[in-house]
């Protein structure tokens, strides 16, 4: 999967590595700012007694 991605990226080795780092950054930002908060809101954490 990652090998295929590496092959699909254009440019030489340095360009590919830079693109991979940028892609990883985008994915990480997406996880931190969108996916994780969304998942967090779906996980029940009930600190109250069931009145």
């Amino acid at each position, binding site marked *: *999967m*990652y*090998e295929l991605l590496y092959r699909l990226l254009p440019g030489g080795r340095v360009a590919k590595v830079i693109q991979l780092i940028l892609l990883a950054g985008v994915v*990480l930002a997406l*996880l*931190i700012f969108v996916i*994780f*908060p969304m*998942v*967090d*809101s779906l*996980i*029940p*954490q*009930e*600190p*109250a*007694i*069931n*009145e």
Partner: protein
Amino acid sequence: MSRHASRRTTSWLTVLGELLITAGVVLLLYVGWQLFINDPVVGNQQQLQAEHFKPSTSSTKPEFEKISNKLAQGKVFGKIYVPRFEAKYVRLIGQGTFQNVTLNKIGPGHYLSSQWPGEVGNFAVAAHRTSHGAPFNKIDTLQPGDEVFIETNDSWFTYEYRQTAIVDPTDVGVISKIPKGMTGAHSGGKYMTMTSCHPKWSNKQRIIVWLELVDEQPHSSGMPLALRKAQEGE
């Protein structure tokens, strides 16, 4: 098996392995985000909000009683100070324990069925132990001699630690006027109950901390001396 078929099998196994490793890394990132990014950031925001919030002051005692009956869910009516958690720990207290209105947005929430601070009976407050700023993350560290301070627009209330218990989520008696299970609780007593999840990251049980009112003073007299000393690290 032909060489071609073998390569294809290896390829699918490789992809599956990579997907599983990726999922593991994402899960680890989630835990790291929760522990080191989300809770500290949200907790810090709640702390700053509470520090800057000024309860509208009044010199007359009945003022809070007047507004208390009209408080909507999620309306902030006071602050809670717990020096045991952190010297300058302070959080807002919102009305009600609805997650999306109070607990997830403001922090600690006041049980609608419980009494108000300083009243005869039980002033009960719930807050997250993990996630959403985790206001009661250190609830299990409270011990004899610890004090918790409540500030409203017209008073300061000092509650002293009495007891910790682990109960089922359905044990509603723990927040009743005479807290069920609290040693020495009696009619006419003025109690406070803090509730949160137990164990951490689980909804299985609730951790309960009971406290008893030991002092009350008008808001105009300023922060209680014990709290000021605790905040200054004395």
